[in-house]
């Protein structure tokens, strides 16, 4: 067996044949000291209540407690502004946050697997529904005025600056010279919106279900990389891979605001995205979590979302970005609703997407 993956310190070991002077105490003291440091750091970090469960920063506690926000990959910048804004409000005073961002499906599974969560902000409703089935989110989570949704967007086609490949709509994506990026629909919520937008656009164009599925198959044959999340996909695109990135409109806006050299095309027929947010029954801070979710639906909060390229759900909020309404905008409801669609398309064993993914050689399910 390889002794160590490190330098064999031959000579080092040889010297130790001669026992050095007795100075055991130094070693013992060092050990004790590092243990003490560990305990001190832990104590410094840990708020009294949940040291066993999670590391918490010093300065937590106070009145508000600490909310754990688990979200999908794109709204990070928006929450970076929303959280301080919430902390300015009465219910938000003294509340601190732990945040996690990642692919919506993966985040939903992580919550199911025990990731400590108070507020789940996911890409699409089924990822919340999974939490409802597990008893982690209340049955009536979508009973409010906005049906549990906090932001809207549409699926757009992000292209290189100046649109060198002259992409105008869905049909251009299956041209032989076009390489596409879209995240993996088995982990990413954005990818599922993308799939349903592409599929629904075909249906809207009067094609049959079989023809629409055939289009999806062709589309995936043009996909260069399926990253785990929409954010990772944008990262890959910005590194020069692919001609078209299928993505959220807000992600395209944010990319340009961050100085990325991109344009985007809003197809005539595309899907209206609605992103849910829900309070998770963690048994810890449900009151504060509820207050935070309520805050997200206030005008000031919606304004921040709009600034970051999201279409607000609350009326009367307008941001710096124009949000064109595509001629043939459709919703997931037009395609049968998420519960039917999820089963039909995205079941990891029997979904329609599985053979399509298999055909391009990407393992899934």
């Amino acid at each position, binding site marked *: 067996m390889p002794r160590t993956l490190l330098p064999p310190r031959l000579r080092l070991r040889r010297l130790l044949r001669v026992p050095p002077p007795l100075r055991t105490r130094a070693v013992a003291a060092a050990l004790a000291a590092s243990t003490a440091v560990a305990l001190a750091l832990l104590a410094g970090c840990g708020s009294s209540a949940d040291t066993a469960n999670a590391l918490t920063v010093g300065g937590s506690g106070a009145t508000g407690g600490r909310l754990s926000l688990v979200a999908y990959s794109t709204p990070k910048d928006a929450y970076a502004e929303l959280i301080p804004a919430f902390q300015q409000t009465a219910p938000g005073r003294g509340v601190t946050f732990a945040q996690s961002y990642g692919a919506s499906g993966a985040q939903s599974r992580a919550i199911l697997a025990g990731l400590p969560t108070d507020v789940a902000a996911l890409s699409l409703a089924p990822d919340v529904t999974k939490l409802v089935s597990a008893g982690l989110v209340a049955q009536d989570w979508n009973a409010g005025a906005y049906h549990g949704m906090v932001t809207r967007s549409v699926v757009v086609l992000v292209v290189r600056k100046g649109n060198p490949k002259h992409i105008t709509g869905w049909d251009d994506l299956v041209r032989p010279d076009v390489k596409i990026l879209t995240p993996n629909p088995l982990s990413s919520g954005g990818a599922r919106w993308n799939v349903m937008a592409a599929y629904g656009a075909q249906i809207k164009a009067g094609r049959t279900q079989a023809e629409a599925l055939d289009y999806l198959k062709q589309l995936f044959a043009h996909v260069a990389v399926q990253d785990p999340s929409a954010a990772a996909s944008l990262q890959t695109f910005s590194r020069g891979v692919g001609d078209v990135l299928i993505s959220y409109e807000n992600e395209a806006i944010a990319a340009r605001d961050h100085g990325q050299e991109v344009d985007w095309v809003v197809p005539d027929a595309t899907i209206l995205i609605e992103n849910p947010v829900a309070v998770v029954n963690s048994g810890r801070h449900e009151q504060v979590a509820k207050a935070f979710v309520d805050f997200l639906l206030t005008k000031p909060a919606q304004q921040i979302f709009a600034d970051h390229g999201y279409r607000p759900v609350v009326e009367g909020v307008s941001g710096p970005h124009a949000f064109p309404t595509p001629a043939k905008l459709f919703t997931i409801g037009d395609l049968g609703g998420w519960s039917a669609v999820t089963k039909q398309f995205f079941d990891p064993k029997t979904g329609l997407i599985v053979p399509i993914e298999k055909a391009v050689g990407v393992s899934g*399910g």
Partner: protein
Amino acid sequence: MADLPIGVHPRRGVAGATRAGHPLSRRRAAAPAALAATGFTAMFLSVVVLLPIAALLATGLGPGFVEAVTTPQALAALAFTVAVSLVATGIDVVAGLAVAWVLVRDDFPGRRFVDALIDLPFALPTIVAGLTLLALYGQDSPIGLDLAYTRPGVALALLFVTVPFVVRALQPVLLELDGDAEEAAATLGASPWTTFRRIILPALRLPLVVGGAQAFARCLGEFGSVVLISGNLPFRTEVAAVVVAGQIENGDAQAAAAIAVVLLGAALVVVVVVRSLASRRVRSAR
């Protein structure tokens, strides 16, 4: 000696022999302290190593095993991982030989600095290693060499993290090689190349193989340094460890575990081969 529990120690045989016959050691073996220490070790290893590996094997070797590891994406990633690891190991062996030779037999200003530099890739966190390589060989490469998202880029990341293995395996052996045989050969008219081939290389074969195998094992499972530079393009630059991570994201723990089991098996094969090579060498030395 029945086994080589901790690596290869040429002198272990002697030590073992004295120990076996000594009354003190026998008394110790039965002492409660020995039992307690052994019990603690066994328990600790079970919790930290054995149980997780067992759970992984149980999950991975389920009915879906063959299917999961034979998807085109998994096969391509496994094949690429092995291929790029072999290439990196080959370069490691050649370059490592040159570096170790220069460090031991040559003298120049800054030799100590270079010697310390060898350990840097070990000490540097893997994710920082990837970031570091992207600074010079990424999109904004100042020397115009963009290896991001390419296969050579992956190989480069592996080369970076495996720099210490071959060099550190060779150094002590080179140090101990006395120059007498080489001088004798030279006196007898052997060319430097012949001397190298006939005198030096045979002595270095074992450390080369062992260092190379360690590097190879490390390459097979490398994740952190590769993940940024490879772009993880399926069928092109995606390595097996990244596929495992992707399958975890996709919620398919079973497929992830299946591919993980293959990686684990490959690593174990390397370990066993090295161990048997090394122990043969010890036997022949005795």
